[in-house]
């Protein structure tokens, strides 16, 4: 295949640091301007932190990369101030269909309930997501984005990190309190630190193609087991903007990748799938999927995020989505530490919480990949039996796995959570991400996700006599305030009349109380930020 086409071009510019007599010192350097590095940079800048963002390229290129952006990620992008152009451009979807042979086995709806500001998913080429993030970032003077700046050496110290950066004008040195490596699945930073990336590499190969065509297929995720156009294997079809369609075709283990990528081989294969050859191949690549992770994501003052920290197979849209959620988890913590409002140990909870998420994603991704590509004949027999029974028995349908789509992980064992003091019926437990809910302000519709503060948020029905710390935004529910018109807030939160829910800056529940009191709030805040309050 030809090299990746450039979609958006940027320019290298010499920075003052390259002329400094001694290495400049920065609070945060991020390596890698992909969705994760860009999201983190914007989040930190919005929290008042200066960021240097380095990228080895000077362009955003094409390629079959992430396309499915989940509701939680879109909520993060909304807080970063760049969701609207993505929602305008992206293809919204929530229904998936699973076929076997030429019949439909079943369909599913990922967002069956109303009352969320964001759709379950949008499909949008990663290059558009990156473009919108760069557009947003360019309005933030605290971010210094340096194209064609490649990190070539890293030296770890207990309290800082030293870097060498290669540029078209030659190398220069930098020092940083924190280095965040968002440099992708092949992370050079990981290699420079000699850190093993352990896990499972699947033997099966998958051909991933983006084709351009006009077609009237609905905007749904279509997945086939053993389709007539690709016997014995699986296939996936997904719509993207600009009349681009993503196609994944499973290949045999011993398929010759070089051969399979040739247009004269790929084109007839896809023509059989689509029933016509009126399409253009935009991009073709062959992958062996991997589920791997670093044992730890924090090494002194070097933090790994996104694919650099953990890699999953793509069935489930858990790569870019979990990476953006890494950034969301890290941003507020790093900001508190850099402002001296929390001890450096708070960063250890990033490792703890996002490890829980990585393990959850790897587990789901491994289960799905194994279901698509059984290892042995016994496994295939079991898989095919589940497919046989699926149309006739609900239990078997639930076992059919064409990818379990990305949901944010609840941090069930987080040291930042305050355990419930009283028994709760329903609601959102500590560590879990808060769901959205429709609300009314002066009779006008709005959403809970729009009301959350930049730092902590306290939800109550009742008025509070206590004076709250400046880091806490009080959101008062109820008639005359934010009215729960449809009753969905009540149904989702089960908040008692005198109760309170404390939400972290990343939208996970820190603590909840059946009856609000000041001592509870201060203790919960102190716990959630490890000593910065109370």
């Amino acid at each position, binding site marked *: 295949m030809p090299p990746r086409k450039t979609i958006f071009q940027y320019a290298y510019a010499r920075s003052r640091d390259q002329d400094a007599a001694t290495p400049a010192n920065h609070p945060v350097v991020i390596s890698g301007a992909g969705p994760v590095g860009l999201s983190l940079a914007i989040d930190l800048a919005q929290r008042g932190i200066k960021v240097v963002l380095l990228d080895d390229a000077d362009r955003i290129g094409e390629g079959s990369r992430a396309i499915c952006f989940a509701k939680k990620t879109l909520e993060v992008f909304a807080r970063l101030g760049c969701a609207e152009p993505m929602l305008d451009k992206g293809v919204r979807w929530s229904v998936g269909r699973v076929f076997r042979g030429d019949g439909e086995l079943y369909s599913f709806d990922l967002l069956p309930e109303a009352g969320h500001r964001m759709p379950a998913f949008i499909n949008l080429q990663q290059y558009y997501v990156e473009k919108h993030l760069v557009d947003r970032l360019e309005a933030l003077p605290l971010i210094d984005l340096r194209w064609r700046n490649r990190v070539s050496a890293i030296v770890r110290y207990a309290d800082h990190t030293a870097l060498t950066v290669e540029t078209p004008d030659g190398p220069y040195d930098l020092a940083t309190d924190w280095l965040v490596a968002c440099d992708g699945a092949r992370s050079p930073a990981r290699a420079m630190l000699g850190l093993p990336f352990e896990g499972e590499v699947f033997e099966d190969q998958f051909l991933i193609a983006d084709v351009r065509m006009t077609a009237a297929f609905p905007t749904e995720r279509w997945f086939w087991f053993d389709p007539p156009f690709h016997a014995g294997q699986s296939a996936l079809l997904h719509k993207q903007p600009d009349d681009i369609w993503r196609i994944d075709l499973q290949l045999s283990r011993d398929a010759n990748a070089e051969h399979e990528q040739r247009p004269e081989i790929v084109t007839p294969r896809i023509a059989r799938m689509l029933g016509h050859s009126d399409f253009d191949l935009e991009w073709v690549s062959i992958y062996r999927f991997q589920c791997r992770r670093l044992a730890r994501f924090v090494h002194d003052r070097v933090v790994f995020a996104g694919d650099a920290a953990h890699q999953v197979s793509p069935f489930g849209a858990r790569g870019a989505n979990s990476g953006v959620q890494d950034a969301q988890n890290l941003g507020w913590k790093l900001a508190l530490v850099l402002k001296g409002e929390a001890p450096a140990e708070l960063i250890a909870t990033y490792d703890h919480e996002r490890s829980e998420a990585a393990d959850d994603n790897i587990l789901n991704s491994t289960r799905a990949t194994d279901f698509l590509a059984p290892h042995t*004949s*016994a496994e295939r027999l079991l898989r095919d039996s589940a497919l046989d029974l699926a149309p*006739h028995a609900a239990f078997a349908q639930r076992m059919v796995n064409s990818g379990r789509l990305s949901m944010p992980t609840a941090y069930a064992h987080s040291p930042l959570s305050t355990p419930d003091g009283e028994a709760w019926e329903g609601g959102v437990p500590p560590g879990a991400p808060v769901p959205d809910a429709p609300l009314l302000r002066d009779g006008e519709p709005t959403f809970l996700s729009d009301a959350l503060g930049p730092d902590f948020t306290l939800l109550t029905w009742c008025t509070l006599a206590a004076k709250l710390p400046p880091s806490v935004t009080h959101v008062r529910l109820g008639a005359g305030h934010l009215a729960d018109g449809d009753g969905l807030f009540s149904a989702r939160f089960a908040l008692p009349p005198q109760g309170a829910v404390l939400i972290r800056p990343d939208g996970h529940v820190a603590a909840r109380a059946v009856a609000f009191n000041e001592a509870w709030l201060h203790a919960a805040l102190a716990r959630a930020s490890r000593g910065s309050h109370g």
Partner: protein
Amino acid sequence: MDDALVTDSRFADPDAAYRLIVEAHRGLSEAESHALNARLVLILANHVGDMVVLEQALRLAKAGPTLPIPA
């Protein structure tokens, strides 16, 4: 047929249950896998302990691959 046989999904995490069975087969020869399946059928049949349910389960298992997919 009365519906004594439960075909609704009963596991909180069906993927985990499926995975447990898959992992039990890892590293076995084909003959060993068949034997494992057979023993598992007998164990679960006894656990069910109901001839009506067992007969219904057998009927569904036999028909499974040949029944047309409902429209």
